[in-house]
């Protein structure tokens, strides 16, 4: 039976949803070995008990938070040498892709990023050119390193690892960059953008007033997103930007309010299962990809939708 390594993804000791998704993809190929490269392993381990994981390997001896991605890639390279896995799966975050790239250089193996599906033969599916083309790719040399985009699969539950081991490492070559300070992200209480099953996004049309967008998001239990025009204007932080130079999302439901739907914005949300657009301009290109379009004023429509959603719930 072959094994598959998955890199446990966590923020502040909280295991992200993508880890369960990686385990689900990994299970299609073989036994899943979850690798922990974090100083929060004590908090992380119990959270893996409901995932479809066969074994955990906790890398110790390195201050991963201080060194960032070079140390994680070095640790994974050692685990690959030890376990000879059929593949290494990593979450497709900015950090995950950096780790994948560095690991690929280290172990001289092919890398595929942003896969949305993976089969038992390790054939990856990618959605490229802003979602307009689907390709199937394979790694032809070394140990396939594949980063999987979040929300691409319904994670299956499992009974957790049957075994856990520690793997002591030394990391002397260092990537030399040190984190001086970290101001933790303000917790909005909303789901993470790339993990959310519903996203309500606001654009230039909000004119800086995101209140109706946020209120609808909260009624739906959704994440808030923004167009580049909105983040550039400073109305919302850059980390909430959806699109070519922001996050790529594919939720069950994407609601775009006051967003024109430029090709670079669509590149980040076009593969959402259901798309709703609210825009004053009947000619806005966002309507070309919308399953339900409302030509209207977002300040009138969004509150009505919010009230309707709240009424449905009670």
């Amino acid at each position, binding site marked *: 039976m072959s094994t598959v390594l998955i890199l446990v993804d966590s923020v502040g000791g909280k295991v992200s949803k993508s880890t369960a998704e990686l385990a689900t993809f990994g299970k299609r190929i073989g036994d899943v070995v979850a690798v922990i490269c974090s100083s929060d392993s004590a908090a992380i381990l119990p959270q893996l008990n409901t995932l479809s994981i066969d074994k955990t390997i906790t890398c110790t001896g390195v201050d991963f938070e201080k060194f960032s991605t070079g140390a994680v890639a070095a640790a994974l390279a050692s685990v690959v040498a030890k376990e000879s896995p059929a593949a290494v799966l990593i979450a497709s975050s900015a950090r995950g892709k*950096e780790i994948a790239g560095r690991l690929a250089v280290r172990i001289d193996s092919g890398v595929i990023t942003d896969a949305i599906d993976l089969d038992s033969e390790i054939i990856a599916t990618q959605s490229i050119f802003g979602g307009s083309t689907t390709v199937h790719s394979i790694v032809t040399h070394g140990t396939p390193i594949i980063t999987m985009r979040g929300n691409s699969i319904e994670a299956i539950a499992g009974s957790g690892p049957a075994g856990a081991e520690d793997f002591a490492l030394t990391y002397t070559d260092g990537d030399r960059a040190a984190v001086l300070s970290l101001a933790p992200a303000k917790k909005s209480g909303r789901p993470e953008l790339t993990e959310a099953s519903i996203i309500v996004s606001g654009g230039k049309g909000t004119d800086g007033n995101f209140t109706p967008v946020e209120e609808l998001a909260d009624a739906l239990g959704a994440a808030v997103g923004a167009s580049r025009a909105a983040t550039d204007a400073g109305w919302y932080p850059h*980390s909430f930007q959806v699109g070519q130079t922001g996050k790529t999302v594919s939720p069950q439901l994407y609601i775009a309010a006051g967003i024109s739907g430029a090709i670079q914005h669509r590149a980040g949300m076009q593969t959402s299962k259901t798309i709703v657009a609210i825009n004053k301009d009947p000619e806005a290109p966002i309507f070309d990809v919308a399953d339900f379009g*409302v030509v209207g004023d977002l300040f009138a429509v969004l509150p009505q939708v919010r009230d309707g959603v709240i009424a449905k719930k009670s």
Partner: protein
Amino acid sequence: MKIAVCIKQVPDSWAQKKMGADQRLDRESVDAVLNDLDEYAIESALALVEANSPTGEVGEGSGHSITVISMGPERASEALRKALSMGADDAILINDPGLAGSDALATSKVLAQAITAGGYDLVLCGTESTDARMSVIPAMLAERLGFAQLTFAGKVGVSGRTMTITRQTEFGVEEMSADLPAVISVVEKINEPRYPSFKGIMASKKKPLVTQTLSDLGISPSDVGSSAAWSAVKDSLPRPPRGAGIKIVDDGSAGSQLVAFLAERKLV
């Protein structure tokens, strides 16, 4: 500082891209432009030099140099010329028939070799090329060169040989620092790239743009190009366009109709 800025020529991000018969991006059918995101890296290099030069300017007398490097076909020299007209000092085009079909591993190998050969101590990149969108080259360069990796910078400062960046990640707002040599990638929020001035465009015509081949860099053709690409596309198909959906004009009840639509799809 001896700065190298890695830039790529890419299909215009406004263009509709498609795959060619060889399972690679059909580059012939679309306009090629300097990767928008790399303009921010060029601007960062110019701003860093200007802020740390006795003359307040780039070029001779600044004590620093800015070289733009691109691996790509002959016409990528247009992107390099644009960078020169913005103010970079000189340019290197790495162009060799053996490079066709290179993957990210090979691209990073070639760029790393050119950076080593040129003896640069600061490498600036964009965060992503808008065609491949892998966002891995800067990290791969740091790994290959053994340089410090400072990626996704929203702010860059230098004091002596220490670089400090601020960046926003899923963890929060991080301040990171490292001594040179370093690889820095910058996000588009960092600055507003300047437009080339008429004077800049005229001056750029006289600036050196050299072409290097694989043999100039001492790289064997068998280590790069399509035969050494370690991932391959098996097949590709255009995704069926989304069917036009329902479109209504708000008459005061659109919100309620939308809720009914969402309920029907079991989304609320």
